[in-house]
């Protein structure tokens, strides 16, 4: 042994692991309880007790954020801190940063739990947090990153195990996604507008949304799987080499798949196709990882009978396999045409979160907590009960959503022999889902029951144990000569990869003849790369990747490049284009925007739009009509990209519990909207929509709207100074038109009330102001 290599005494910081673990349990209960409450509201609309901050639209973001960032997030941090210290044979770099990370994250969760019910939201799914909390998330994430990379720097194990690679990719990718998707300009301490609008905002949001699933709910958990599965099975991972392929293929491909959330929307077709193709490709690395996890149990399958931890892991990885098969399937355009906006998507998402995330976390907690407290699990029987009740709950939930989704999709598209909609009334479809909504509620309640059993079991285990920090003696590693960071980054595999990626992009934009040449060149490069990388030794019989595993900086940079490529190729062209805006030649022969293109919202309509966002209407209503006969028959002409150019943020939604609203403007009278929001059942019998009576008592603030319009100009909305100065009179005059109309039908209402603003916004949807006459509204006879 060299003199430079010393034996060191290390005390692991397991206190921080305990804290994150217990926080995960507590917030898991809260997040799932909120999920059960909103599931109950789908069946029993009264379950919001008439309180605005308990309405579905406000609680749904609380449920999703609590499940993702509070429950799974805290569990990830616990597992990452536990495994990183042991894989790197060193204590976490800074106790102060660890605890700052912990308390900062819990403060963010508490802030989210307060702001969401109050309606303080950005209105973008899984990114609803308002800007001050976004800043806090960035700061806490940076704290986590510093602590993690600092720990890498003082490690006593030269090579980074595969779990660490996944943690690295998580840290850098989430940072990129979160910052880009939350680029926004504040209008006040609690409100902002994103810098992107319409189609661009939709692409950025779903690039973020899909990869929040990929890099928050998948990659860190795969890292945990690669650590905790071998621990529990007492077997090494099935194939270390497969894990290398799994890692690089997954992170490179995953980032491209976001547009599959926007198939058949106004997003350009090339972006949709890229999203679909990469989603299908994602199946391969995902199943490679799944098989690697399951086959780790080779020779130890008998443990499945006796060890609840293994049971949870096996079901979790199986659900991972199911979800990662279902995801590519749903990304195929023709399948998406049926499934999009239906409960099939909700079933898919919950298969992933309840099965893959929830059960993997449960297995990890059952395995870790007895060891963190130097005792045995309080009750194996309770763990078994949790397993079976949770599994039954999941199956009920997912199957009911599958059945509901497929049948609802078929219901919406059904045409009669005359070529028109067989079921023109949207509410009929909702009625058909009632039983399945109940099954979903029962399934969710069972899953929560299982989780509560685990919580009790774990707290009893904690009570009878004693907190233990493991101490150990480790041997440091000797620094060996090899290529430096920059030589590794410029190594042969990187060069070959760059050539193949460049050729692939060229293939996408080239014609048929050029394609043949590009394909031939690509084939030569691929074969040369495989042969070349195999024989290219970086000295001393060591391969490029082996060196890379010992160089965290090089590894991080290459991982960052891998995840940036897809985002750049998809987002940059879309942000730059203006081809969606209709142009015309003016009298001087100069190309200008057509005056018939979309105009900015009036101040009152903008106020109504902000209320629509605050109430979370997008959680149940889409604003995007796809180019299918059954959709255009039901909702009107299909949506075009230019219609959304001033929508900061876009409100296309992802689910239709209620009908699409993209062209609801002018479809109903003002009175209909008034009655519908006061008591949805009065106009739509059997609707499960909450009532919004509180909009009657709140007023639109002129000063606030002027400030917001000012910020809108900075993100590209062409309000003039005169528009902003005259916002007050403008709000009053447009509001008075609506209030006078309602008064003629016996409804006195404040013209500056939020109810009037909401009606103004809904009446504008699908129509520019140029299409609305001064005598609006016209339809006053029908109220159904």
């Amino acid at each position, binding site marked *: 042994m060299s003199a430079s290599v010393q034996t060191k005494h290390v005390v692991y910081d397991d206190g921080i692991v305990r804290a994150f673990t217990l926080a995960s349990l507590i917030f898991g209960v809260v997040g799932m309880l909120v999920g059960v409450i909103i599931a109950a509201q789908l069946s029993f609309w009264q379950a919001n007790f008439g309180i605005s901050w308990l309405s579905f639209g406000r609680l749904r973001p609380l449920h999703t954020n609590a499940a993702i960032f509070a429950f799974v997030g805290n569990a990830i941090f616990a597992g990452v801190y536990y495994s990183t210290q*042991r894989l790197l044979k060193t204590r976490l770099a800074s106790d102060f940063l660890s605890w700052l990370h912990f308390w900062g994250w819990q403060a963010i969760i508490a802030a989210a739990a307060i702001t969401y019910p109050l309606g303080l939201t950005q209105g973008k799914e899984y990114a609803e947090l308002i800007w001050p909390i976004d800043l806090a998330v960035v700061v806490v994430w940076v704290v986590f990153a510093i602590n993690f990379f600092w720990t890498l720097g003082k490690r006593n194990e030269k090579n980074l*195990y595969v779990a660490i690679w996944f943690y690295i990719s998580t840290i850098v990718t989430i940072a990129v996604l979160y910052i880009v998707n939350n680029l926004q300009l504040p209008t006040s301490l609690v409100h902002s507008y994103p810098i992107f609008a319409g189609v661009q905002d939709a692409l950025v949001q779903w690039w973020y949304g899909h990869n929040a699933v990929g890099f928050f709910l998948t990659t860190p958990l795969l890292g945990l799987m690669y*650590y905790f599965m071998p621990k529990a099975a007492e077997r090494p991972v099935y194939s270390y080499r497969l894990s290398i392929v799994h890692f690089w293929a997954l992170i490179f491909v995953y980032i491209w798949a976001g547009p599959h959330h926007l198939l058949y929307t106004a997003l350009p077709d090339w972006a949709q196709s890229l999203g679909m193709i990469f989603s299908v490709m994602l199946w391969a690395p995902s199943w490679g990882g799944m098989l690697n996890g399951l086959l780790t149990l080779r020779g130890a399958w008998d443990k499945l009978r006796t060890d609840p931890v293994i049971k949870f892991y096996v079901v979790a990885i199986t659900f991972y396999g199911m979800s990662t098969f279902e995801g590519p399937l749903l990304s195929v355009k023709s399948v998406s045409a049926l499934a999009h906006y239906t409960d099939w998507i909700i079933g898919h998402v919950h298969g992933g979160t309840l099965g893959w995330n929830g059960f993997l976390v449960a297995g990890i907690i059952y395995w870790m907590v*007895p060891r963190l407290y130097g005792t045995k699990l309080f009750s194996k029987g309770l763990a078994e009960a949790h397993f079976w009740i949770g599994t039954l709950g999941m199956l009920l939930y997912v199957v009911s959503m599958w059945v509901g989704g497929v049948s609802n999709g078929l219901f919406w598209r059904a045409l009669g022999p005359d070529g028109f909609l067989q079921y023109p009334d949207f509410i009929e479809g909702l009625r058909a889902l009632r039983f399945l909504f109940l099954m979903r509620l029962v399934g969710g309640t069972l899953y929560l029951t299982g989780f509560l059993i685990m919580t009790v079991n774990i707290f009893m285990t904690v009570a009878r144990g004693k907190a233990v920090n*493991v101490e150990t003696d480790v041997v440091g590693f000797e620094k060996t000569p090899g290529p430096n960071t920059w030589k590794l980054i410029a190594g042969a595999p990187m060069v070959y990869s760059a050539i193949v990626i460049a050729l692939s992009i060229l293939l996408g934009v080239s014609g048929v003849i050029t394609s043949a040449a590009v394909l031939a060149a690509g*084939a030569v490069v691929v074969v040369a790369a495989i042969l070349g990388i195999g024989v290219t030794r970086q000295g001393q019989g060591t391969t490029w990747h082996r060196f890379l*595993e010992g160089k965290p900086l090089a590894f991080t940079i290459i991982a960052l490049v891998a995840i940036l490529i897809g985002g750049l190729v998809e987002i940059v062209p879309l942000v730059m284009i203006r081809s969606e805006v209709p142009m015309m030649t003016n009298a001087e022969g100069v190309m200008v925007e057509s005056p018939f293109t979309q105009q900015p919202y009036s101040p009152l309509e903008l106020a109504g739009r902000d209320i629509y966002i605050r109430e979370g209407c997008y959680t149940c209503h889409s604003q995007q009509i796809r180019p299918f006969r059954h959709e255009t028959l039901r909702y009107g002409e299909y949506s075009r990209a230019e219609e959304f150019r001033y929508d900061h943020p876009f409100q296309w939604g992802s689910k239709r519990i209620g009908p699409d609203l993209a062209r609801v403007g002018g479809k109903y009278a003002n009175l209909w909207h008034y009655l519908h929001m006061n008591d949805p059942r009065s106009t739509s019998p059997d609707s499960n929509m909450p009532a919004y009576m509180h909009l009657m008592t709140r007023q639109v603030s002129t000063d606030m709207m002027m400030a917001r319009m000012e910020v809108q100009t900075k993100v590209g909305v062409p309000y003039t100074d005169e528009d902003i100065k005259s916002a007050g009179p403008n709000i009053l005059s447009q509001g008075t038109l609506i209030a006078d109309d309602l008064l003629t039908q016996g409804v006195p209402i404040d013209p500056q009330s939020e109810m009037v603003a909401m009606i103004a916004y809904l009446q504008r949807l699908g129509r520019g102001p140029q299409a609305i006459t001064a005598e609006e509204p016209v339809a006053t006879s029908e109220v159904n």
Partner: protein
Amino acid sequence: MDVLIVLVFISLVLVVGGLIFLFRTLKEGDSEHADRLSLLPLAKDDLAEGDNLNSQSKPKENS
């Protein structure tokens, strides 16, 4: 039809490339490194379930 030709061609390249990679790996036989790393999670660096310690620590040997 163009896309079928592209798909078949790319698939063949990947299959041939994969086979070359497989045979080269088998010939090299350099799996010791992967074997050592894959054993990292199995190091005895945590308590066995049921270790009811009175002290706050349990030193363990780690190679």
